[in-house]
């Protein structure tokens, strides 16, 4: 639908003799706006969901006033509050770095949504090297976290940032290895091809060696979005709030948005790589895609509110001593099965 819409409008444009680059630019802006709106709405839902699930798991009620019995407008009220709050710059802050950090974290979190397939040919841009694009762009926010920690001129923030960077770098290795398994199996880096390969032979989670890759992806994804048991960068009891401790108002909201956007993205990408993306009977493709994504989101939230936090050396050791060798083994195994 996306591609056909593009062609229809594009043809109209060419027929009327207008310069094609204006259409291209306008299309890009429109798609970026669409992605932004989708992400903002998703985050509203996700925050509400997180509160409801955590309340359920802790035998509480959770938000139940704003906007009706289940408090659906609670997050909107919170967003409004964050918008109205004072924007504070700490006295000793490195102002430019402090100012830039939220954007360096937030923008890549939006960019990766470009390759998500909401249906057949229904991605903003199904890049030729989609998986590589995702991996490359996801590497950016780490620098934003370091900038936030350093720019705040606060020891808790610096510690949180160092932890975030160390953890993110370590878990990126097994994450990429898990994705390599899928790429090897599908024989393409394009997300559309990976989904097509699952249509022919069944979801990748059901194909023999890829269960290991799924497990690796799931664990590392939880670490990448800094969720318990891997939430060391913002461990409240040790670091107050980690790298964003000095941020307030909208700047804080940017970190918050980026975190939940990333949570949704890793879940949706998990559904894409392993659960057949938009494929399913009866319901429209986009609905299937959202259902699968939210199933993974809820699983991650469930784990977050169930298990305790690890120590930083345990987290690092777990990645380098267990997940990386497992990832290498998974790649070799996938290669053998694929060739055989």
């Amino acid at each position, binding site marked *: 639908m996306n591609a056909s819409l593009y062609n229809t409008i594009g043809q109209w444009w060419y027929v009327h003799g207008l310069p094609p680059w204006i259409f291209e630019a306008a299309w890009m802006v429109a798609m970026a706006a669409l992605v932004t709106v989708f992400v903002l709405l998703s985050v509203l839902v996700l925050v509400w969901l997180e509160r409801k699930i955590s309340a359920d798991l802790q035998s509480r009620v959770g938000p139940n006033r704003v906007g009706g019995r289940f408090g659906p407008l609670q997050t909107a009220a919170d967003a409004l509050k964050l918008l109205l709050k004072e924007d504070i710059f700490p006295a000793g802050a490195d102002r430019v770095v402090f100012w830039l950090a939220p954007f360096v974290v937030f923008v890549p979190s939006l960019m990766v949504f470009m390759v998500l397939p909401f249906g057949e040919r229904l991605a903003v841009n199904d890049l030729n090297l989609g998986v590589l694009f995702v991996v490359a762009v996801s590497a950016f926010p780490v*620098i934003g976290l370091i900038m936030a920690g350093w720019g705040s001129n606060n020891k808790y923030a610096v510690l949180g940032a160092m932890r975030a960077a160390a953890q993110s770098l370590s878990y990126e290795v097994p994450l990429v290895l898990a994705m390599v398994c899928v790429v090897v199996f599908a024989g393409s880096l394009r997300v559309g091809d990976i989904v097509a390969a699952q249509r022919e032979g069944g979801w990748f989670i059901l194909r023999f060696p890829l269960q290991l890759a799924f497990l690796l992806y799931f664990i590392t994804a939880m670490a990448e979005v800094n969720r318990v048991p891997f939430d060391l960068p913002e461990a409240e009891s040790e670091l107050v709030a980690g790298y964003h401790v000095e941020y307030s108002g909208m700047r804080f909201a940017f970190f918050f948005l980026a975190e939940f956007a990333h949570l949704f993205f890793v879940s949706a990408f998990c559904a894409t790589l392993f659960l057949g993306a938009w494929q399913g009977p009866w319901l429209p493709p986009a609905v299937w895609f959202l259902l699968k994504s939210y199933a993974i989101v809820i699983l991650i939230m469930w784990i977050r509110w169930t298990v305790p936090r690890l120590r930083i050396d345990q987290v690092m050791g777990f990645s380098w001593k267990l997940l990386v060798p497992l990832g290498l083994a998974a790649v070799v195994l996938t290669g053998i099965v694929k060739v055989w």
Partner: protein
Amino acid sequence: MIGSLWNVIWNSVFSGSFWYPLAFVCLSLGVLIPAVLVALSRNMVHAALWLLPCLVSVAGLYLMLGAELLAGIQILVYCGGIVVLILFAVMLTHGLGDPDVRVHNQQLLWGVVAAMAVAGVVLRLLSQEIWQSGPPVAVSEVTGRLADALLGPYVLAFEVVSVILLAALIGSIVIARGDAAPEPGADDSDAEAGE
């Protein structure tokens, strides 16, 4: 005169041929200006952070040349890996953020001589090359062909590089271990000391 120049610019804007050179100029400035600032920043963290726009612009130049894979790898390895590691290393050093850190030394003469020599060699090489001009040729299946080349004719070079990297990895572990028994959570205490 000015009117016709304006016409040329307007026509190129309208037809779209204006944007490719413009993007090249912007990206080149995006490489060069941050590169100078990396060398001139007194604050070491700022110097490391200036690497970021520099390396991203290089990735942009790769994209303009139609080398998407190279651009992706550039972002992944340099921006996501190397800059983060440099920032890590910088944060463990002393005198961090001290505005009086000197960025110049007494070797101005030799520095200029070395820079001129390198510039001369580079210019010589560049002037000997016969440059193709025009838009990049679209090559299909670049990734697959690159993979075939790496695992085919260039497999020996590829393996040699990986052995060198492995040696560097083992060497750094040996150095980091030191003589004393390694203590758990050494990274954390280091971070605190650096801060």
